[in-house]
């Protein structure tokens, strides 16, 4: 016997628009984080420790400092960002709030984009604080518009795939270990492109050296966004 679709007249559904749902998730994450400061403070302290350790471990002259800056910066961003990604999804899972989110009458990719944008904002805030500190410690000028663009594109790609993989990892008991194991191999090509583009901007190379890496960054961002949009619903559903 099949269910008769006419047996109950559908009740008119109310649901927010895609952008309203994305905005609600972002605002919720920002309000929660600015109250607890758990995530930002952990990311910032970790980033600070990494650049201090590199500063003391590598005794570099001015030329060498310029050459390794891009690598040190991206290692710092990636490890600090991974802390944030892990925590961001753990907050949803610890009190089972993820179920509360998934019960909302919205396209579930809106929840993904809300979480991803909040993670991106947190990462950019930490990067904005770390850059001047790095500039002072290493005596390198980092305020180059091209470098800022690369940092935004690289961070976007990183949190795009990172948020998706953090959602996968959050269901596992070993989520803290699982996320870096899943994430780092996937983001290696993105990181190589980000480091090369950053390095080219810092060494004031002409745009013909920058474009290949910049294009690669843009392509990776598009691929990661498309994959995440298409798969998030399947990842969160039992």
């Amino acid at each position: 016997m099949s269910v008769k679709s006419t047996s109950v007249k559908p009740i008119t559904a109310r649901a927010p628009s895609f952008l309203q749902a994305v905005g609600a998730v972002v605002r919720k994450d920002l309000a929660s984080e600015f109250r607890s400061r758990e995530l930002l403070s952990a990311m910032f302290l970790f980033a600070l420790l990494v650049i201090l350790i590199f500063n003391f471990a590598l005794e570099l002259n001015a030329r060498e400092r310029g050459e390794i800056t891009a690598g040190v910066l991206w290692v710092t961003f990636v490890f600090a960002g991974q802390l944030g990604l892990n925590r961001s999804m753990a907050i949803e899972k610890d009190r089972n709030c993820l179920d509360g989110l998934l019960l909302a009458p919205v396209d579930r990719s809106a929840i993904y984009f809300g979480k991803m944008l909040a993670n991106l904002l947190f990462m950019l805030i930490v990067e904005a604080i770390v850059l001047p500190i790095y500039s002072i410690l290493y005596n390198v000028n980092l305020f180059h518009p091209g470098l800022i663009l690369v940092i935004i594109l690289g961070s976007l790609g990183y949190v795009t795939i990172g948020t998706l993989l953090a959602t996968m990892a959050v269901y596992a008991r070993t989520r803290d270990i699982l996320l870096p194991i899943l994430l780092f191999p996937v983001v290696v090509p993105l990181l190589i492109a980000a480091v090369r583009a950053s390095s080219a901007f810092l060494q004031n190379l002409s745009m013909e050296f920058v474009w290949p890496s910049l294009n690669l960054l843009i392509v990776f961002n598009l691929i990661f966004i498309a994959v995440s949009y298409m798969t998030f619903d399947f990842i969160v559903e039992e």
Partner: protein
Amino acid sequence: MIEVRKLIKRFGLKYVLRGLDFEVEQGEFVALIGPNGAGKTTFLRILSSLSRPSMGEVMLAGYRLPHQAAAVRSQLGVLSHQPLLYGDLSAEENLTFFGRMYAVSDLETRIGEVLELVGLKKRRRDLVRTFSRGMQQRLAIGRSVIHDPQILLLDEPYTGLDQDASSMLDDVLKAVTAEGRTVVMTSHDLARAADLASRFDILSRGVIAASALHADIPPDGLLAFYRRTINQEEEPALVS
């Protein structure tokens, strides 16, 4: 309001629901009772679109799952033993967030009404992590009805509540269900189920093994009805 036909849910080789049929009319309060592992929570997770059925047909409020899941979710309020609330947000901020996720119009007024209903108006600006278990569960009721849903799914809502908090939850549930909402509640607390529900369905071994209306069960007769059904269900297993 809820129609389920031949519902099967399996995890790997393990069948949790084995061709379950279930129907609820608008305004009914159905208590779904059964032993641990009978599939009650799995069934409610499928009804709430958190889990996908392996086979079978599920319709709520005229919408079919899983294809019209978002429309179904707009008609559902879900309350479980976990409050699904954010500890670092205040009671008001939690309701504001969930209200936005359901596109509730005139949200500020609605939040006031809901906080009044669950008796937390004076604590509206306090962080949820400072609330007792009972207060969190009351706020969770507020979260589940903020969008005025037609169907309420309650999964063991009394777990971990003390006597005072339980009777407060009773009052709140009676208030929210008095308005003609359809309710399905799983519970191990037969006395409470007998007090609240208009129908009792016993879920055992992945199917509805028996069903009875409140009027057909004598006072204090629910336990006997439950035991009789479960024992009948278990006998073939003992023989085989």
